[in-house]
């Protein structure tokens, strides 16, 4: 079951993206990169508080993975979640507004960078607890199953998170329940200042699938198509009732751990080595070689994303601060119990109308 290198060779396959989809992947990667560059600028200028963990260099992973999902599928994310969110379809404007703490942010400015979520996109949230999202992914799969849906859950986690006990419990539980969870490890070689080689007792996280009877595969995380294919197959497996898959995408972050923890402990050569296989350039090259896009087409895509991010900055910076009363709202949902309610799977599962605005927007997704 286990292969130490690429499993899903680039075979001709039904999951291969169309030309338009390929250009879409290219656009998404740019969107993420440009977005993150803006976040860094806004952090440097003091507009982003606290910290922010940039996804630059890893764009192929989130982009390829989320493109392989249906819009009704779920994602659980990490502290380094901006890329996941954008790839899942969240808008840069309200995301950036969230990250600078504005009322128009996805979470009204209450979550910030480490807690971006969007119910209507099935994005169950970035998570500030390393490994914290992994059992939630298992639960989301369980919940979807109970509700009669065939959604899969894509669960991102890092090489550092690969040593958290809760991950193993999650892998085991997903395996014995054969749940459609795609455990996707973004192995960027480092956890904060700790190299994976000193804290991870095995070279490949994918190896660990075997301990749970979960097929584990190493994937080239700089190759958006490889990621897309791997996740497509894992999603198929999940929907077919074959259970979870463990994918380890080897990738790299260009920036230091976070906007707060900026000490660079990595060798310049290592950074240079990885930058030489930049995921955006890689796909750009492929698109040109395959005749899917010209240099000018690619430039146009990039320009379009630049404009989108400029608009997002504009939107975010002109958004109001949250009303201070918001500090005390959303602690609890209103519990007015209506005893004579639901029977069957009917509509009022989320009958507490006042609270389900954002949920009801998402037909067929969360909140069903």
């Amino acid at each position, binding site marked *: 079951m286990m292969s130490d290198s690429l499993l899903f060779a680039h075979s001709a396959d039904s999951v291969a993206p169309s030309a338009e989809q390929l250009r879409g992947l290219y656009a998404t990667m740019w969107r993420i990169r440009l977005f993150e560059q803006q976040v860094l600028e806004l952090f440097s200028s003091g507009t982003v508080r606290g910290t922010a963990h940039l996804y630059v260099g890893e764009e192929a992973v989130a982009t390829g993975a989320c493109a392989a999902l249906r819009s009704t599928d779920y994602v659980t994310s990490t502290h380094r979640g901006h890329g996941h969110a954008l790839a899942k379809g969240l808008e840069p404007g309200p995301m950036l507004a969230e990250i600078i703490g504005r009322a128009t942010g996805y979470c009204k400015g209450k979550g910030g960078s480490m807690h971006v979520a969007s119910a209507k996109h099935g994005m169950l949230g970035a998570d500030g607890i390393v490994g914290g999202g992994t059992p939630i992914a298992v*639960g989301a799969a369980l919940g979807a199953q109970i509700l009669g849906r065939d959604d899969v859950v894509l669960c991102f986690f890092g090489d550092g998170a690969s040593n958290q006990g809760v991950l193993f419990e999650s892998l085991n539980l997903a395996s014995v329940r054969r749940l459609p969870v795609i455990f996707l490890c973004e192995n960027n070689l480092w956890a904060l200042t700790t190299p994976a080689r000193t804290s991870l007792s095995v070279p490949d996280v994918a190896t660990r699938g075997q301990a749970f009877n979960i097929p584990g595969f190493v994937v080239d995380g700089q190759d958006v198509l490889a990621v897309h294919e791997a996740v497509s197959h894992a999603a198929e497996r999940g929907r077919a009732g074959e259970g979870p898959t463990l994918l380890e995408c080897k990738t790299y972050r260009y920036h230091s751990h976070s906007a707060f923890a900026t000490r660079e402990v990595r060798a310049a050569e290592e950074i240079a080595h990885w930058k030489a296989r930049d995921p955006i350039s890689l796909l750009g090259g492929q698109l040109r070689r395959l005749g899917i896009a010209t240099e000018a087409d690619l430039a146009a895509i990039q320009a379009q994303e630049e404009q989108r991010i400029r608009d997002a900055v504009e939107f975010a910076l002109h958004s109001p601060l949250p009303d201070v009363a918001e500090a005390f709202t959303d602690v609890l949902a209103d519990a007015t119990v209506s005893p004579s309610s639901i029977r069957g799977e009917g509509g009022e599962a989320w009958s507490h109308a006042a609270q389900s605005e954002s949920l009801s927007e998402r037909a067929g997704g969360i909140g069903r």
Partner: protein
Amino acid sequence: MSQMRSLTVAEALNEALHEEFERDPRTLVFGEDIADTGGLFGVTRGLLDRFGPRRVFGTPISEQAIAGAAVGAALVGARPIAEIQIMDFLTLAMDQIVNHAAKLRYMTGGQLRVPLVIRGPVGAGVGLAAQHSQSLEAWFVHIPGLKVVMPSTPADAKGLLKSAIRDPNPVIFFEKRVLYAIRGDVPTGEHLVPLGKAEVCRTGRDVTLLASGLSAHYGRDAAQKLAEQGIDVELIDLRTLKPLDVDTIVASVRKTGRVIVANDGYRTCGFAAELVSTLVEEAFDYLDAPIVRVAGADAPIPYAQNLEAEVLVTTDKLIRAVRELVGASAPAAVR
């Protein structure tokens, strides 16, 4: 009014689950050993046969994943109920409960909600020593975003569990282990006890006794014996520890001016301290004497029976505390 039958607390909880599972197909329950055997205390008995292995299943021994899976299932619209086999093992699940279940709604600006129940047996008195006897409810009362429930009677057990399952928030539901077998009348069919409402079990004019779970029973016994001695105790069973029914307890204290707060948890920084503080803030001018905590000792729970009795709340300790409080004016600290 609905009809009554005599049930144990365990049976009443089981009935609540059966009714809610019938009513709402989004419910599911999981935990260690809860399916085939119906759980160590039979609370989930019969659910597997009736509702099938998708909605009722045993899990590996993985408390973090159990709690986290409940969070995830709740987020997507299911109504998970997770059993923690003994509530001391919540120590393993704190991150999922506190950093996730309790905060996800807030952190996402109200987008997500987390309607789940985590339930299981709690408490000492049966010789299971320090790791199987703790009453850690104070930790959960401390955390915004959670509700905390502790029934004392079969009827409340049923009515509160049904409300907890329907609540759109994460509810930590503490079932006093030594009460599972006690009997009482329980209404058949729909019977909801609202979360956040205390019950005045006995009116009295001399002392207010605030209790919950097991101590509510001891409180009843104590009140009866004290009545024979001419001391009139007003007994309030809090039922929900969070949100607290401040109005009911303040009204009582305004009347009696004297208060005993009983709680099985460790005394220091326990739930009893919150009751004291709330009353100091809300009813200071009505207090005729210092509020007295009758709580678990500040020691782990020992195994030997004679030692265990020393550290627990008992009827006798309640009686002694009330008598001292009514008789004396000096601060009375009961251990």
